[in-house]
């Protein structure tokens, strides 16, 4: 069930962002908007600049020119950890979890920026510290329930499979109660069943939490199925933007992916 998106309410806006490493231009005047309550997918061939763009959004990279505004405020120069507390959550392409800790503690670490206790207080473990921990634990348990991870709650992350680790990564991103969620290739390396589960979770997050989701993903079937809108990058340029059915037949996109416009496109 795909719904119509209110184009009036923009959550995140990227305005003419360019980024280069030395002489290589990675992003060239990229502009787009993310609206409230939509799943926007960014696709493109390898090396198109997708991850670099995400890194600009979450603050790992500083764009050379251009502006990024979030809920009307400019955040181009805001530091990474400040962006997290503004409500920009993200998951990673490579896994950035603590493999020696339990699933529960990994997700709890997502609550870090929301905790008021300082290091010394935590060490002394005063009653209010304990109360705060319980409150955070409750939120985390709800996420565990939401992502159906009860059975692995106390497992050490290092012992778990790749598909589950991806889910833990998502759980941790949700733990900081994001207002917008950026996901970098959440389905890479997953089998069919894990992909279906993850797609279901992404739709559920969007429906239940009503937050916009930016998705970078290679699996076209999934992208076409769950996105409200798709933006296509190629060599740092936005070459197309629109609904899945428009993108599917866009000759520029087909050319970027296959090199020739007249080839079969059935693999979508």
């Amino acid at each position, binding site marked *: *069930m795909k*719904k119509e998106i209110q184009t009036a309410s923009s959550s995140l806006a990227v305005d003419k962002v360019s980024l280069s490493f030395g002489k290589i231009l990675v992003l060239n005047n990229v502009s787009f908007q993310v609206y409230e309550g939509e799943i926007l997918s960014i696709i493109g061939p390898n090396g198109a600049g997708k991850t670099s763009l995400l890194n600009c959004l979450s603050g790992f990279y500083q764009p050379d020119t251009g502006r990024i505004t979030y809920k009307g405020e400019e955040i181009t120069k805001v530091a990474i950890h400040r962006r997290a507390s503004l409500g920009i959550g993200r998951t990673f392409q490579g896994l950035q979890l603590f493999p020696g800790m339990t699933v529960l503690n990994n997700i709890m670490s997502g609550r870090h920026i929301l905790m008021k206790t300082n290091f010394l207080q935590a060490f002394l473990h005063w009653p209010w510290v304990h109360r705060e921990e319980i409150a955070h*634990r*409750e939120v985390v*348990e*709800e996420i*565990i*329930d*939401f992502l*159906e991870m*009860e*059975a692995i*709650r*106390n497992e050490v992350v290092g012992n778990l499979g790749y598909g589950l680790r991806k889910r833990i990564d998502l759980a941790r991103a949700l733990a900081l109660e994001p207002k917008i969620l950026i996901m970098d290739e959440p389905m890479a390396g997953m089998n*069919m*069943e894990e992909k*279906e589960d993850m797609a*279901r979770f992404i739709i*559920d997050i969007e*429906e*239940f939490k009503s937050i916009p989701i930016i998705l970078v993903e290679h699996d076209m079937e999934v992208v076409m199925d769950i996105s409200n809108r798709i933006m296509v990058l190629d060599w740092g340029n936005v070459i197309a933007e629109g609904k899945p059915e428009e993108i599917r037949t866009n000759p520029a996109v087909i050319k970027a992916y296959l090199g020739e416009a007249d080839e079969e496109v059935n693999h979508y």
Partner: protein
Amino acid sequence: MKKGQEMQSNQRPIKFPPIGADTVPKLLRLRVRELGEKVFMRRKNLGIWKSYTFLQVYEQVRNICLGLLDLGLQEGETITIIGENELETFWTEYAALCARAKVVCVYPDTTPQELEFILDNSETVVVIAEDQEQVDKTLEVRAKLKRLRQIVYWDSRGMWHYNDPILMEFKEIQERGKKYGQKNPEIFDQKIDSGQRGDVAVLSYTSGTTANPKGVVMNHNFLLDNALRIFANLPIKKFTRYLSYLSPAWATEQWFGITLGLLAPFEINFPEEPETIQSNIRELGAALLVFGPRQWESLASSVQSHMLDAGSIRRFFYDLGLKVGYKIAAGETEGKPVNILWFLVFPFADQFILKPLRDNLGLKNCYLPISGGSAMAPDVFRFFHAMGIKLRNAYGCTEAGMFTTHMGNKFNLETLGSWYVSHRDIGPSFESKVTEEGELQVRGGAGFQGYFRNPEATRKAQEDGWFKTGDAVRMTDDGQLIYLDRVADLRQLSNGYKFPPQFIETRLRFSPFIKDAIILGDIEKPYVSALINIDAENTGKWAEKRGIAYSTFPDLSQNEGVRNLISQEIARVNQMLDLKARVKYSINLPKELDPDEAELTRTRKLRREFLEKKYGEMIQNIYGGSKEFLSEIPVKYQDGRTSVVKATVYINPVEPEHPGDSTI
């Protein structure tokens, strides 16, 4: 052993408790009055066990019952509950019974087609579904169900954008019930008072290995009869910690959980998720467990596979402890002579090896572990007994109730145990006989109530007032039964020899490397052969240990080392069989058997006819004398796509373990 019309009337002096109620709702009300503030149910939610007292449960049941009445539920109409074992499942069943409606519980993994048949056959008016998955299934088939008025769901996840008027949230039923109760404060008690012991309470759909499922009628008398049989014949303790795991779609849970849970009463616990069952058992220290053979077998094989992985020192101590355990258990349960030396070592073995093992399985506090549903090999029982877990078999059938269980301290593992005695207020005394064909027939107790809307099947199932179980058994001299197979499944070879395929299959399944076995052989076949579904996990580990490389399941199954391994396992079972019943050739299936492809029932029983058709090519080859052939098996994926598994399949002769030793 005598055969024929020998009748067994089971008269043992048994003390029954006073019942005090003739329907399940009356029993519930009685327990609430006696034990109001005691904990009755517990569920783990968001990582914490939450308790509900008898009064709290009663309040919920009342609201749900009144909510259903407010929706227009009439006496005698049917409600279907589809979902995992959760508080809501039990509450709703009690509530519907209070409203004098019939209840059908359905396995959560039932397919839409099966669901449609059951909803239609049972004349269901309201479906109470757990979540989106179950709602979607019901919506898919609703167009053909004229009687269906409402679909209620209790987990609203994913349901945010559904706005079909037939849907309703569980909370709304409860709210409606509250309001309805304020306007009609007397009606709930009146409904309970008006209930009769002969009211139909539950329709239990049998899994239907051959045809469409049949709805077995169970009235309140029947439910109470069975709960009383168990309560009076087994050492059931008050407030036993019980973990509800078997689906109430199965009659066993209707007797143990729903009815005995009230009669005893139990503290009924619900697992957080079906996947967390193992850790939940351990957290709880569950004291009474009823599992099917599959669960016990998989528990046994998980111990075995963990030990395959363990280092040599651990394995040494494990083997040592288990050896002592086997000796002691054989003496204690089966009355075999035991050297006094074993008694001297036992306390150490028990304290340092067996007790930690029990603790790890979460069975440290389990005083009554029961296996029921179908036959399980004595080896599995012995394995658990060796660990100090006194596993007992329970035998019965949906239509006529519980028959026998291993009772007392000493029992014969080859038999099904001693007979239950029925309460004299319920009906005539419970009797059994074995016919010329070796079929077990029973009568007495609350008795068989028939199949719902199926008079023909009801008539066929009975003969002169006896219920025909369809089970082929042998009766020992002291009146105990040895289960052989279904009468219809006993098969004759071309040389006239009759052999029990299931008997062999059960014993093969005990091997950690064999997950399922299909035994072949009939009037046109001169000998017995087997199709084996290898256990991918354990066999895979075994192969890895030996440096055997493999890519996929088909590859692993046809590997030469694996084929030899399986042949050895079959040869071991062959030792227990008559010479003529021994398995001569076997094939490892290049694909796992799957209930989604209708190869197994939902309780993982084999659908024999279907399998013999589907694997007809293999069966031809196994009796055709070839050594290998190229097989093509169609498979259906969960999302509906189909494909073909192609593999070269080998036919493996099962060598005798000691060549030349052919006279046993």
